[in-house]
């Protein structure tokens, strides 16, 4: 258990007992029931409701990168996105913009690699703010960085793996939708939210794209297109208005609908609007039950990857803050879950616990688990079938991102990890030294996560409706 967790437990438990004025009153509950219900007691309404159940509220998650199905048919060559692949879309950013990027990047232990060259793609004005869209390539990721200056401005960076473009059947890719900037007014309406000054939707386009149409509640709107990117800024959008679809216009004038997931509105909108409406694909059930999963190389302290020293600031800090660090032998290694990527994964063994961390430009995660229980299955995964040999997190940090981050670690039993997507394709997840980190297109949910052993037998099977 980490220090913060202990402190929270101790201090919150100190708040007992409840205020003396507070006591359970089931009769009062029954008196509030408005519709006939088979409760055995009188349920006459004695006073009006004080709480109104209506609103949905905002949800802002965090930054992410993304991926698209590896198993999808390859309908295009990378040539259409050649400028992106070579890292040279648009024009070089100004020295000032490059410097700001480098300064911000340098603050992180594991930011984008030094020397990453920013490219300027598009610029526009809206709602009294200036929107500048930059792009760059970093390892296996293609990233868009929207810098908004003016009151209410800010910076958003979202990335896509190169593989997303390799697998793309469409001529463009939405990377981020309805990123809000600034608010209007001071007193919120009953649902608690103020309208935004502007909301930006942006993505990557191939060479042949002549235009991009963005649809919301009204007519289609033309996005700016240039530098192999598109940018649409809704100026003073209505409260809760969201882009509902995006289409690319190709050279011959035809319109192609792009894979898209609406951004959520409201903190209670915790289930993101991602299910495609298509059925879950892939095999059902398991073919072999696995028990007592482990990561043998970690247990025997085999030196894979690299050691964690004070130089690796974030993972070093996380590992050293383990409560029992001083008392036990912590064996920690930094690994690369995806070749060429900037993200690093941490696996550590300490006093019967397995710790996992993920560190990268858009990743920051660390947690420890009982080694005896982590692969025990349902307790963690709630899987449709029994003991599961993998531990994972599936996260969208900001609801605007079009791709969910999927990362974690697996026991030695897992030889293959496949994601069955609703377009019928299979996204193969690369596992290196028992860790993995990839992206899943939100428009492909619900997904089925299937793990197989060396013989190809299914040993884990779980359907996930939403990230």
């Amino acid at each position, binding site marked *: 258990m980490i220090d913060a967790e202990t402190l929270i437990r101790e201090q919150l438990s100190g*708040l007992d007992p409840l205020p003396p004025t507070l006591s359970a009153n089931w009769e009062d*509950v029954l008196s509030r029931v408005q519709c006939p219900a088979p409760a055995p007691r009188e349920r006459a309404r004695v006073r009006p409701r004080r709480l109104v159940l209506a609103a949905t509220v905002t949800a802002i998650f965090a930054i992410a990168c993304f991926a698209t199905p590896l198993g999808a048919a390859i309908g295009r060559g990378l040539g259409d996105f050649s400028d992106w692949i070579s890292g040279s879309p648009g024009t070089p950013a100004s020295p000032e913009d490059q410097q700001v990027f480098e300064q911000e990047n340098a603050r992180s232990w594991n930011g984008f690699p030094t020397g990453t060259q920013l490219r300027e793609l598009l610029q526009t004005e809206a709602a009294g703010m200036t929107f500048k869209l930059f792009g760059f390539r970093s390892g296996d990721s293609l990233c868009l960085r929207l810098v908004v200056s003016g009151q209410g401005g800010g910076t958003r960076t979202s990335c896509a793996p190169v593989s997303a473009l390799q697998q793309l059947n469409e001529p463009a890719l939405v990377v981020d939708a309805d990123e809000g900037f600034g608010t209007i007014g001071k007193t919120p309406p009953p649902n608690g939210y103020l309208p935004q000054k502007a909301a930006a939707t942006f993505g990557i386009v191939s060479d042949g794209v002549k235009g991009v149409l963005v649809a919301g509640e009204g007519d289609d709107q033309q996005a700016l297109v240039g530098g192999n990117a598109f940018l649409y800024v809704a100026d003073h959008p209505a409260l809760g208005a969201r882009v509902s679809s995006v289409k690319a216009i190709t050279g011959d004038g035809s319109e192609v609908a792009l894979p898209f997931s609406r951004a959520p509105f409201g903190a209670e909108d915790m289930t993101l609007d991602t299910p495609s409406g298509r059925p879950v694909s892939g095999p059902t059930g398991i073919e072999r039950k696995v028990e007592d999963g482990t990561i043998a190389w970690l247990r025997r302290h085999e030196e894979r990857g690299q050691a964690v020293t004070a130089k690796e600031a974030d993972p070093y800090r996380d590992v050293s803050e383990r409560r029992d660090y001083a008392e036990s032998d912590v064996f920690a290694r930094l690994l690369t879950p995806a070749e060429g990527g900037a993200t690093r994964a941490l696996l550590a063994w300490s006093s019967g616990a397995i710790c996992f961390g993920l560190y990268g430009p858009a990743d920051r*995660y660390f947690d420890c688990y009982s080694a005896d229980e982590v692969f025990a299955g349902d307790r963690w995964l709630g899987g449709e079938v029994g003991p599961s040999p993998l531990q994972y997190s599936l996260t969208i940090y900001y609801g605007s991102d079009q791709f969910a981050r999927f990362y974690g670690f697996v026991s030695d039993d897992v030889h293959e990890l496949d994601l069955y997507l609703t377009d019928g394709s299979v996204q193969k997840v690369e596992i290196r030294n028992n860790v993995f980190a990839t992206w899943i297109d939100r428009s492909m949910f619900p997904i089925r996560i299937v793990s197989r052993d060396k013989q190809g037998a299914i040993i884990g099977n779980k359907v996930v409706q*939403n990230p």
Partner: protein
Amino acid sequence: MRRTPSQRTSLQVSELEALYKQRFAAFARVAISLTGSVELGQETVQEAFARAIEQIERFRGDCPLEAWVWRIVVNTAHTGARRAAYESGDAVVPEPEEKNGRADLPTVQLWVRSLPERQRTIVFLRYWADLDYRSIADALEIEVGTVSATLSAAHRSLRQLIEEVPR
């Protein structure tokens, strides 16, 4: 023997009553924390259970009954808090009242309040309601991995706050 729908519903209302009596303190603690007010927190629990009775036939049994009730309590608390903030002219959820006559709320509780809404909700469900990850995921209709990731982020934020305070 298979139960008829009405038999099943009556049974579930009885289960709701048992749950209410058994776990009232946990529901109340979390509701008070989410709303920032003892009165509003109590109101939340009462209204949430009333709503649960009204909607019991919608309970499909795809998660534990308690998780389903937690979902209603959390939604009721969030909505109630925002409604209260609106009616009072505040743009944000009100700060907590004095608890048991004490104004010196534990620092950690104040730190928890500074967390983003989703993190705060999950922290309360984890430590005050003592729900495991699966139950929190069921209650909030999110993935277990998301619960884990969100708690991890909350711990990280709290660690930073703890370190900033001279001891």
